């Protein structure tokens, strides 16, 4: 019984806290890279608590429903990850949650939210197929879609799937809303088409979306951890290095348009994945 309860509690309560903490560290490191001091590490928590205390001004009922649905879907995806469930199931639940954000944005008449929602859909179109290919690679190597069998696999997956890990980093950059892929909305103090897909979410609903985002960060970093599952030190090093590379990319690149994103991510992602998958099948 405790084998079920512990992962559920960790997934529901510890994961968002760690996600918020990572977000705070992210803001400090970004500020240091720009020659600034940056906010305190607890800043994301201050922001979210403040947002919960604001007046709730939902544009319509659907928007509120969509914000709650996104949070619930993201939380379920993380809990399933900690329960070491099926990778494909987790990806689909996560994608369903992301679609709810888009639907909430489309339910308002603001042109900024509409354009942001369309761009968000294009971002999902860019990285979701690549995530499926990464999972296909993991399946070809370990013979199972279960996270449990990945964690019990004898050697680090990154030795056999190095290119697929690079593909996962692309997906991570898009999912974290980092440059050059922060088209639909941008994190921290940046502005893009006002606030893009999040323009009409305000107050408590924005807070829900922010907590959902923390869950997503943990989920994607969890995917990274699959690639070096044999030792704890390996997992932690891999995650820290990957996240640092994300911040470096974010601070050294400019925002590009969606045409570039779609063609670049698909061209690079599909070619790198197919090289790696061919290597697995033929090698």
């Amino acid at each position: 019984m405790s084998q079920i309860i512990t992962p559920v509690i960790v997934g529901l309560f510890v994961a968002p806290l760690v996600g918020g903490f990572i977000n705070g560290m992210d803001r400090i490191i970004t500020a240091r890279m720009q020659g600034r001091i940056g906010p305190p590490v607890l800043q994301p928590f201050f922001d979210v608590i403040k947002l919960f205390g604001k007046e709730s001004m939902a544009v319509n009922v659907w928007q509120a429903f969509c914000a709650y649905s996104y949070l619930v879907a993201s939380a379920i995806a993380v809990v399933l990850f900690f329960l070491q469930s099926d990778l494909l199931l987790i990806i689909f639940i996560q994608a369903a949650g992301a679609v709810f954000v888009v639907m909430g944005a489309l339910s308002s008449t603001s042109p900024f939210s509409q354009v942001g929602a369309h761009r968000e859909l294009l971002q999902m179109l860019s990285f979701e197929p690549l995530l499926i290919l990464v999972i296909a690679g993991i399946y070809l190597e370990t013979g199972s879609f279960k996270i449990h069998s990945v964690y019990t696999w004898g050697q680090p997956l990154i030795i056999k799937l190095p290119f697929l890990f690079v593909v996962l980093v692309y997906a991570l950059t898009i999912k974290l809303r980092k440059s050059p892929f922060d088209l639909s909305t941008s994190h921290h103090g940046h502005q893009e088409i006002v606030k893009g897909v999040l323009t009409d979410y305000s107050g408590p609903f924005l807070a829900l979306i922010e907590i959902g985002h923390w869950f997503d960060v943990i989920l994607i970093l969890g995917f990274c951890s699959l690639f070096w599952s044999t030792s704890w030190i390996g997992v932690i090093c891999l995650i820290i290095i990957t996240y640092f590379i994300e911040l470096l990319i974010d601070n050294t690149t400019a925002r590009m348009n969606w045409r570039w994103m779609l063609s670049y991510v698909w061209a690079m992602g599909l070619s790198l994945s197919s090289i790696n998958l061919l290597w697995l099948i033929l090698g």
Partner: protein
Amino acid sequence: MITKRIHHLRAKIMTHCRKNSPWLLHYDCGSCNGCDIEVLACLTPVYDIERFGIINVGNPMHADILLATGTVNLRNKKVLENLYEQMPFPKVVVAIGACGLTGGIFREAYNVIGGIDKVIPVDVYVPGCPAKPEAIIDGVVMALEKFDKISRMPNAGMPEASGEQRHD
């Protein structure tokens, strides 16, 4: 007794978070851009107001503090009112610069209504032509003190123009 204490603690945490995470909305009513450049100077690495959790947002629905500069005229009056109405409670307004306070040298012009407080309630006045970035940051910090007074209920926290004058 215990519920009262919990309520008190909750209000304390909320006030702390509000004071440490003010998101700014900056609106130029028709200023000469002098004050606007000084507002933007606060956001550069020199002053780095993100240290205090301050973020410049472009969206009134996400904003807590409205920084308004310049004279209000018959045209931009509606825009200013609209922006103010779109901001969810609790919210505070900081008027910046001689024009934002009284209409400045343009106050006699036929199309000018006057300062920001002719249209929306203003909480803090920051004088100067243009106002210095240090004075603007000071004004924002004074505006944050307002969050102490605003209670948790959104409607009870209707901000009224108390007109605190900032002296340099």
